[in-house]
């Protein structure tokens, strides 16, 4: 079991050495701070504290950034080693493929967790300092950080899947960009189109919320919005959340990383270095 930790240690070293960790954390801090200040205007009209509004803005930010950052590390995980010719050597050692994947996943997830916690934490602290915070808004911030890490885990696993399926690192990068576009942008546009066509029929009433929550990015949004009344008000998006049972969004966001990892493991088994 110590073998996967050896891989984890080495991967952490690489993320620190090639400045990925620094850049990702910096991006998170800058975007979170910018959104907190830019989005602080409606505080008075809604009657909620500034941290609540800040969390609502950062939720929208995280839907885009968490998958992007995760895919940026994950696409190279297998295809990069194949390209360098070092995967065959790694696989000639006693560590199994599952251990190698788990070792990389642990390191990458820890790096994402670090960037998320520092980024959202800093912005949250600034918002609380200037505009006040309550127990409920602090809970919302903690929830945002934890669910962002989960969302990152989903896209790490999906990134490994693409990295195992792709012919090389460049192809894996292209496929990852496509995956991001589909899950984060096109999926919602498609649903929006379907709802408009349906004009409030049975699809909109009963099918639409489930199709929506099946997408991990939307499940992330719904979980954060449904859990806090203030955040829901600030983001102005309550309809879909009310149509679903409370467990739907957490279940989706918890099942996806496991499913994604299992698929990546299966695809990795078929890789011939």
């Amino acid at each position, binding site marked *: 079991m110590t073998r996967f930790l050896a891989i984890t240690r080495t991967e952490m070293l690489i993320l620190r050495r090639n400045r990925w960790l620094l850049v990702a954390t910096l991006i998170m801090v800058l975007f979170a701070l910018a959104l907190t200040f830019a989005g602080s205007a409606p505080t008075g009209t809604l009657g909620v504290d500034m941290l609540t509004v800040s969390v609502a803005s950062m939720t929208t930010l995280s839907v885009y950034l968490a998958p992007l950052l995760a895919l940026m590390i994950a696409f190279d995980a297998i295809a990069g080693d194949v390209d360098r010719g070092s995967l*065959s050597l790694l696989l000639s050692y006693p560590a199994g493929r599952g251990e190698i994947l788990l070792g990389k996943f642990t390191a990458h997830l820890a790096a994402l967790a670090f960037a998320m916690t520092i980024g959202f934490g800093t912005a949250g602290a600034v918002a609380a300092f200037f505009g006040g915070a309550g127990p409920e808004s602090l809970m919302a911030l903690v929830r945002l950080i934890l669910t962002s890490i989960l969302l990152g885990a989903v896209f790490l696993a999906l990134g490994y899947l693409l990295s195992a399926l792709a012919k090389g690192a460049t192809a894996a990068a292209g496929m990852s960009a496509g995956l991001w576009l589909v899950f984060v942008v096109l999926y919602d546009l498609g649903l929006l189109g379907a709802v408009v066509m349906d004009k409030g029929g049975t699809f909109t009433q009963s099918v639409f919320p489930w199709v929506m929550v099946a997408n991990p990015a939307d499940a992330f949004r719904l979980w954060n919005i449904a859990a806090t009344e203030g955040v829901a008000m600030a983001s102005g998006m309550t309809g879909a959340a009310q149509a679903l049972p409370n467990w739907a969004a957490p279940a989706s966001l918890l099942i996806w990383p496991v499913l994604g990892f299992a698929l990546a493991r299966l695809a990795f088994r078929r890789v011939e*270095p």
Partner: protein
Amino acid sequence: MTDKALSIDHVFKDRGKTRVLDDITLSLAPGQRVALLGHNGAGKSTLIKSILGLTPIQCGAIRIGDATPGSAQARRETAYLPEAVSFHPALTGREQLTLFAQLSGAKADVPGLLERVGLSDALDRRIGTYSKGMRQRLGLAQVLLGQPKVALLDEPTSGLDPISRQDLYAIIDELAAQGTAVLIASHALTEVEARTDRIAIMRKGRMVADDTLNNLSALAGLPIRLKVRASANAEALAAELGGNRINGASVELLCSPDDKMEALRRIAGLGDAVADVEMTPPKLEDLYRHYAQEERL
């Protein structure tokens, strides 16, 4: 228990419609050094990858000691140096070798191993700054981890300067002395000649030769070249011996190993007419050409 460190028994592998391994049989005893020769695409790397369990075979059996390829035991007991090996450029040599030591589970003296391959100055430099030869040495250092039963070296001399080749062969001898069977896939014919116990030659997925250099020479029946220098009249000498005149003063004769002594006696019988005799046995390169290029049905 078997007494073979590595045994390959009637192995077949198809890739699409082409047969990349065609009835390969080869075995290595502990401490034996075997050179695996062949053109690009002859199947050397594929054979090595099937020994490692990285690519499946259709038919036949491979055993590392008693273990099947890819099993945990087999992976503990094999060391591998890939062709043109490369590592993550952001790591240092020490960090990379430490990872391999931890993965192999062997207690290892990492700085000592890096010094053994001549990398002690570059211990804490990033691999991204290494030359091709230095990366190859780092690859060699990880082969020395633990005490492998079998070491598979794929083109180990590529990118090495002549002095590091000497080091490489010293390390191979060291491995063999500790009982590791070493399989060296190579193009560098002249070097493996003196440095290996046996030579196996592959052509288009088939094993066309597997024997000691001497036996291979005898089997191939390649001619021995005799160059006779005349003291005065080369024309007369050529007529007498029946060879070709190659320059003003010399005659070249080709004879089989069996006829060698007979030819020498005839030359000696000519007395003063002969100034000098030079004898060249067939070289590995001639042998290799004979086995690897000749289309035999």
